[in-house]
């Protein structure tokens, strides 16, 4: 019963990832796509947590942390790139 509930939750999460993937493909502007990609990353974190219960292992917790950090850094880098057109600013000549 518990495994069935976990599998059902995994299915629901993959459905929501598919819906966000539609937004990534269709989204009229670039920020749409970035928000959808960020949310896909966060949903992947939840799927890894469910998978670590299903497989009864502690090994995926590091992956959860790492994926959270990488997704955040990627989103911040993309938003800076869209706003200014550059990633690393050098402020020495101001």
């Amino acid at each position: 019963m518990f495994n069935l509930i976990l599998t059902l939750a995994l299915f629901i999460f993959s459905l929501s990832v598919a819906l966000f993937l539609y937004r990534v493909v269709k989204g009229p502007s670039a920020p749409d796509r970035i928000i959808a990609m960020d949310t896909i990353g966060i949903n992947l974190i939840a799927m890894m947590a469910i998978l670590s219960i299903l497989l009864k292992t502690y090994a995926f917790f590091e992956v959860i942390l790492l994926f959270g950090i990488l997704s955040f850094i990627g989103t911040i880098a993309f938003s800076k790139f869209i706003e200014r057109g550059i990633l690393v600013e050098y402020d020495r000549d101001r």
Partner: protein
Amino acid sequence: MSMTVIGELLAAIFIIAGAIVSLISAIGALRFPDVYTRSHAASKSSALGVLCVLTGTFFYFVFADEYISIRLLLGIFFVFLTAPVAAHAVCRSAYRSGVKLAEKNPRDDLKKVLWQEQHD
């Protein structure tokens, strides 16, 4: 009731609630008209769903194995901290790079403030 059953019950409740909230947020991100409303649906409610799932996982491992995972607590804290910040940064860059609001939106207060800021 043994501890494992209590852990499974708590984890099942939290995980199903998180999955349903995440599905609702995906439907919202699909149906809203422009970037700003879409980010409202996608960032906040999706973060809530993921926090529910991570809390359920934490409770399962506490009750079933008596294992308190500091890494999972750090993951919960980190998602709670970074998801709104990332959504805010993307929305700010979207407004400043000129993405239009939805047409049925009646007013835009930030436009006047930004115009004054640029012409002072």
